[in-house]
């Protein structure tokens, strides 16, 4: 089963192998959510995150904090959790990831991965062992695909979005790709105040999509140095494509690459 809805301004996809219904249903007995019910729960989770965190909704906590109408001290537990994670990320990336920039507050660079990770934990709690949740090119991968094999994930070409540059075999991890072709120059280098444009695409694989997303966002803002930064972060691996079509990747990324 695979279902997609547009939430938070991007396609959100839930993929669960059909055998999960049979496997879990038989083992768990009386009540077990159908795959459709599970997908609905995921979409509902994303809508709630959007209500709370969208910088495009005036009533969201993000907008209210940005305007100064809401003190972070008085924000929801979820917002406080995101702020804590954002501060941790800011320190680990030497400021290259920062939810505050030029006087504005926007945690979107972290919220996407965090939202996927949050939804994945809902499915974990319901007993699903294999599934993928994707939002805007970031994916939380669990277990195995319909064929019982590691999930086959393609990296989209930054030069031709109808093509793929690489194919990966992923088991239980998170993957995030930052790229100039997604929203133009939407990731800012806080050092220069200008957009980070040198790199066409940067893919990060981490223990979960939250980790992958935050490091992909920060590393992309570093330009060419980003892949070297990632090489120094033990829990993630990176694959960077420059505007000339040369890919540079960390040695640990090799184990995910299909032939």
């Amino acid at each position: 089963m695979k279902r997609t809805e547009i939430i938070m301004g991007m396609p959100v996809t839930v993929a669960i192998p059909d055998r999960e219904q049979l496997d879990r249903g038989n083992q768990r007995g009386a009540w077990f959510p159908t795959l459709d019910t599970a997908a609905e729960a995921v979409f509902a989770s994303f809508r709630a995150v959007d209500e709370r965190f969208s910088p495009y909704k005036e009533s969201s906590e993000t907008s209210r904090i940005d305007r100064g109408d809401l003190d972070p001290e008085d924000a929801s537990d979820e917002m406080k959790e995101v702020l804590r994670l954002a501060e941790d990320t800011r320190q680990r990336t030497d400021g290259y990831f920062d939810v505050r920039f030029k006087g504005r507050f926007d945690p979107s660079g972290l919220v996407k991965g965090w939202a996927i990770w949050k939804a994945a934990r809902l499915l974990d709690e319901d007993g699903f062992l294999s599934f993928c949740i994707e939002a805007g090119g970031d994916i939380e991968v669990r277990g195995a695909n319909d064929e019982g094999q590691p999930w086959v994930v393609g990296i989209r070409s930054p030069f031709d979005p109808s093509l793929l540059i690489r194919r990966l075999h992923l088991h239980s991890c998170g993957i995030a790709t930052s790229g100039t072709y997604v929203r133009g120059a939407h990731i800012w280098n806080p050092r220069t105040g200008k957009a980070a444009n040198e790199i066409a695409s940067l893919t990060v694989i981490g223990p979960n999509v939250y980790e992958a997303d935050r490091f992909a966002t920060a590393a992309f803002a570093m330009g060419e140095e980003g892949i070297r930064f990632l090489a120094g972060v033990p829990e993630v691996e990176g694959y960077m494509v420059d505007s000339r079509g040369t890919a540079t990747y960390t040695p640990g990324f090799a184990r995910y690459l299909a032939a």
Partner: protein
Amino acid sequence: MKTRTWKRIARAAAASALGLMVSSAAGAQAAATRASAASGTFTGRREYAYYGYVKVQATVRNGTVTDVQVLEFPNENGLSQHINGVALPYLIQETVGGHSWRVDLVSGATFTSQAYEKSLREALQQTGL
């Protein structure tokens, strides 16, 4: 370890080694003897320094080390390379192509331009999605 650090260590080691040699001269005539005997160029043995080998050459005039040259310093190929004084981690490179493989999911952009993205977002806001 950076090359500059090895040079500093080498200089200090050479200076202390020569100091020992000079001070072992015994007797009341030590000062005078020192001044005339301890001059010239001395080359140390090739010593193992964990990452490689170091060999030092010292120039001495009147018992004072006036210059130290590092003739050989450790080669750090095994762990990292120093290029322009910046350490680079080991990375792999390849040229990317374009393929039409069948996959389960795709990581990457779903929209092709900033304008498209912006326009879509505005449209979605109107629909309340």
